[in-house]
């Protein structure tokens, strides 16, 4: 049992922290998210050059062959800086899906470009009416001569506006809710039959609702058996989000702690009041509990499916509950200042709320955890 970062992992952490400290202050972030694209293409190239895009991609295809721990190191730092660049969509989800579901040729084609920052991916899976169930897919993929034609509507596709390729979860067989008959399909974001409605999200990122009308597509690997791959990548993505949330909560805890030490009311720093002190302690307990389960989800990310899924579900529950609580308390303890768009605190709260929503709220994963844990013990 070992909870220490390796020397290489520490170097990675240091290089991230150094760059972010210099290039990614809150005011830099604010400018980026107000731009049309919502992030910086130059930053993305830097991420490629620093090796961050490829660090967890396979060595055979231009990556550095790192694993979930490297991804966690990145996630935690990106969470602390609110990084808006589409690492999560393009690398964790997109790269993850290509690496697990794509055939050798597809991997060889796509992954090196991803690592070099030459293309970006977005994953279109959610539909209105399926809520968080990944197997409830109404979007259809129909075999054509050259490949597939996709029809259907996907909602809230994160980072779709800036993506080159979309990976679309669609049904080739079976009925709604079947885990069989689901495939992943590569669709050019500019292809005919792809209609995007782009928008900003509450956490200042970009997303789109996308209609597909017989959009031309090719299957990423097996067109009928993608579901286990999706679940595997989503569980890894949850580990990423958990670490991102830990980074964000850490900043909120530090920022709020500094604030309560200096803000005066009734002639005393508000941090002198016992109720505020205990609130800060409970914030810390939430943060440390979230950190423990983010670690667990990371270290189980390559474990057999039930073990992996149980750890991911537990982490998702914890970051959902803790993230909301820590975010809301940070706003509360900042008083009126916490309510302003000008301060960073509210933006962290919003991001944590969106992390809770991604792939299903705490409730949803609590039920998933119960099913897995109770099956195990029976």
């Amino acid at each position: 049992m070992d909870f220490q970062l390796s020397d290489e992992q520490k170097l990675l952490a240091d290089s991230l922290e150094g760059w972010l400290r210099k290039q990614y202050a809150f005011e830099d972030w604010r400018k980026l998210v107000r731009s049309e694209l919502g992030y910086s293409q130059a930053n993305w190239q830097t991420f490629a050059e620093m090796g961050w895009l490829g660090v967890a991609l396979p060595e055979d295809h231009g990556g550095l062959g790192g694993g979930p721990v490297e991804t966690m190191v990145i996630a935690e730092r990106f969470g602390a800086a609110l990084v808006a660049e589409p690492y999560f969509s393009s690398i964790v989800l997109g790269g993850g899906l290509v690496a697990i579901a794509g055939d050798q040729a597809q991997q060889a084609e796509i992954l090196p470009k991803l690592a070099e920052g030459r293309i970006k991916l977005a994953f279109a899976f959610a539909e209105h009416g399926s809520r968080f169930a990944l197997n409830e897919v109404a979007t259809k993929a129909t075999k054509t001569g050259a490949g597939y034609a996709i029809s259907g509507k996907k909602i809230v596709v994160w980072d779709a506006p800036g993506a080159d390729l979309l990976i679309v979860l669609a049904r080739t067989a079976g009925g709604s809710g079947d885990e069989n008959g689901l495939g992943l399909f590569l669709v050019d974001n500019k292809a005919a039959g792809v209609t995007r409605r782009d928008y900003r999200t509450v956490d200042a990122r970009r997303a789109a609702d996308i209609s597909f009308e017989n959009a031309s597509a090719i299957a990423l690997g097996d067109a009928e058996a993608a579901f286990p791959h999706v679940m595997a990548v989503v569980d890894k993505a949850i580990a990423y989000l958990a670490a991102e949330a830990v980074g964000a909560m850490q900043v909120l805890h530090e920022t709020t702690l500094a604030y309560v030490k200096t803000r005066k009311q009734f002639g005393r720093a508000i941090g002198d009041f016992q109720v505020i002190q205990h609130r800060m302690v409970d914030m810390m307990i939430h943060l440390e509990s979230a950190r423990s389960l983010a670690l667990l989800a990371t270290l189980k990310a390559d474990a057999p499916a039930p073990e992996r899924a149980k750890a991911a579900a537990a982490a998702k529950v914890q970051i959902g509950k803790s993230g909301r609580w820590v975010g809301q308390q940070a706003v509360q303890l900042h008083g009126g200042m916490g309510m302003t768009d000008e301060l960073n605190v509210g933006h962290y709260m919003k991001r944590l709320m969106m992390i809770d929503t991604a792939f299903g709220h705490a409730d949803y994963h609590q039920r998933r955890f119960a099913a897995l844990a109770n099956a195990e013990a029976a």
Partner: protein
Amino acid sequence: MNLELSDADRAFQAEVRDFVRSSLPPELAERNRRHMHLAKQDYVTWHRLLNKRGWGAPNWPKEFGGTDWNPVQRYIFDEECAIADAPPLVPFGISMVGPVIYTFGTPAQKAHYLPRILSMEDWWCQGYSEPGSGSDLASLRTRAESDGDDYIVTGHKIWTTQAHFADMMFCLVRTDAQAKPQEGISFLLIDMKTPGITVRPIISIDEGHGVNEVFLDGVRVPKANRIGQEGKGWTYAKFLLGNERTTIAEVSTSKQRLRRLKTIARAEMAQGASLLEDPAFRDKVAAVEIELLALEYTNLRVLAAETAGKGVGPEASMLKIRGSEIQQTITELVCEALGYYAAPFEHAPEGSNLAPLGPDYAQGRMESFLYNRATTIYGGSNEIQRNIIAKMVLGL
């Protein structure tokens, strides 16, 4: 003991319902449903419709143009307005400064200001908080120096709701720097058009503009605009804060939001059933509905005690605590009910022909959640409210 409305109350309820149904413009109700921050004209329109009916100041005595309604009638009125999605009444004139003026004002102040509040010729705002004194009002630093028949006021107010709409501000200022913190404060009525006043918007986390900073730089205010005695402003400020007992719990608004939450949860589907049938979500809705029911009856008990002439003590802080917590729970559950469609955060300009993103009921819900994070902060944070109960009620 009984919970029944009297026949007179029922008749009154029907009267209010009929009026609201026939008078409230549907597009106004619709805008109120969708937006946290209405345009000034929306508030004014509704206020004037009410005032025309004689209901411009539900909480005032008849002699000043009020309704003389008893607390049960005011409760009924609030309920009916909330059910119809009427815009909230703007509290600064009728609920806050109005009673101060008719209780402590000079005949000239009464004659001038009260009719203008009723007609909404004057929109008021509240100059209490300052950057250094949020919940700790006694530490305020805005100073008013005597200069013949005037004061010269200099200072910096913050979190001033709708100052950008306001014609007048009631304002706490320090007239005696030597006195103890709570003494030496005076209560002034300031014309917002006076030279030296600058209003700067504060954008809140919902990206809306509701609150402001107000800078006062050598603002000349006639002493005739002072309420009551110099140095006794704290008394009037406390009277004002203590006056808002009956609506502080926001029960009617929360009940309406809870109805909407259920409508949304009925429409949202989760694995083949409506979200309202999902056991975990259903339980959370039921939990807050029961909390709200408890709050409603606690509020009614307070109203009944008030009617019985028993006066309301600092127990009312309890209503503020639970009322704000429940508002936050409901607005948060609404966002949870929306699932992924809680995410889009586009503020389509009025008159835009872009179709709304996601279901129509999703519009403005995240904004509402975000803006309501302030309810546990403003008006004395919930931490302060608990301090007040501990000290004043429990003797701790």
